């Protein structure tokens, strides 16, 4: 009997603690988001964060997008050639990239590249008491550290997605036209005629949301790395926070992608 009670109690404690964590996350994200719109705007900090989140991720985003585009071209070609409609390859590659793969892959890459950076940076600032130092100097650390990251991510991820889409379409063009000898005019024309403004808008709303999610979650994990349930103290807390921020952001991105697609359809 006591064993069962103990079981139920531990479940209850777990539920309560995850609810507490969710509440803390929501309050933190709300704070950071509100502070994004409060003057004075830290332009220099935003540019710095744009550099870390955006510029430094360009290479890896282009690389993944390029090879994804190439493999889409290859796979699409072999599937479409069974129906004798290789001419649709351009549209297939462009639509897949613009609507779905571009936003998601870019967001996942940025999470791996910049999300881990954000959370380890904030985490090590927390354990070396730099965040507390900011408090004592009467500087709001959320305003100074977190809000610029969120603004930068919301701006940078759509731009990265657009760059990735273009590079991916170029990759598809390389396989389709250069390697598999499709007609280049057919490829490009089909691409243009089958994409619509709604596809482009769709593909640019998603990354705004993804950028927001990944910056908010990574900042939260880093900012509170010493008070996580699983993480220890010191450097271990930073590593746990970094790992969990990447995992949680990626999962959230994939789940919210489905929900966003369902809503935007």
């Amino acid at each position, binding site marked *: 009997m006591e064993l069962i009670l103990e079981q139920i109690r531990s479940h209850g404690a777990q539920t309560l603690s995850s609810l507490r964590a969710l509440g803390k996350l929501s309050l933190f994200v709300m704070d950071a988001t509100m502070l994004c719109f409060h003057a004075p705007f830290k332009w220099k900090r935003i*540019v*710095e964060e*744009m*550099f870390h989140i*955006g*510029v430094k991720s*360009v290479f890896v985003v282009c690389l993944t997008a390029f090879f994804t585009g190439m493999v889409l071209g290859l796979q699409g070609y072999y599937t479409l050639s069974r129906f004798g409609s290789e001419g649709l390859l351009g549209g297939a590659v*462009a639509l897949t990239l*613009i609507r779905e793969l571009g936003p998601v892959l870019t967001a996942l890459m940025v999470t791996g590249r910049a999300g881990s950076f954000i959370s380890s940076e904030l985490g090590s600032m927390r354990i070396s008491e730099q965040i507390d130092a900011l408090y004592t100097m009467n500087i709001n650390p959320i305003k100074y550290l977190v809000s610029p990251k969120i603004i930068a991510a919301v*701006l*940078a991820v*759509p*731009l*990265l997605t*657009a*760059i990735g*889409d*273009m590079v991916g379409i170029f990759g598809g063009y390389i396989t389709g036209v250069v390697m598999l000898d499709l007609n280049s005019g057919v490829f490009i024309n089909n*691409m*243009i005629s089958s*994409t*619509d*403004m709604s*596809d*482009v*808008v769709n*593909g*640019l709303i998603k990354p705004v949301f993804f950028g927001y999610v990944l910056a908010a979650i990574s900042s939260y994990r880093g900012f509170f790395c010493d008070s996580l349930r699983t993480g220890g103290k010191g450097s271990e807390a930073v590593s746990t926070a970094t790992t969990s921020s990447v995992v949680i952001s990626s999962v959230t991105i994939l789940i919210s992608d489905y929900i966003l697609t369902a809503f935007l359809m």
Partner: protein
Amino acid sequence: MKREYLEITVGLFVMIGIFCIGYMSIRLGKLDIFSSREYVLKARFTSVSGLKKGARVEISGIPVGKVGDYYLDPKTEVAMVEMMIKKDIKIDTDVIASIKTSGIIGDKYIKLTLGGADQHLKDGDMITDTESGVDIEELISKFVFGKV
């Protein structure tokens, strides 16, 4: 120097990104920055089965516009199609609008056959002569069951 480098790379990144967004919107999204360069013509068809919003409207194979809205006309109870025609294309009053298919399973489009009248249709005018699309299934069934 460090600061300058950082700002230059961020500036470049933003410019390239905006260029890509612009290219996608204008080229792939067919964003019309100078909008309302079209006028609307209406036409009644007995059947618009298979026609989609945004389908081509063409004259002698040249695209001159696209299909806007289509709905059941409450008065006459036949399909009413609105066509957005480019401003610089003049359509004669005795034009014939017909729904055609490109390829055997391809998309439906509207073909306009111009006549020789002197007057041109204006925004909101109605095309009187129309031909609905050919229903291949119906044709085959007529042939099979010997009603030809």
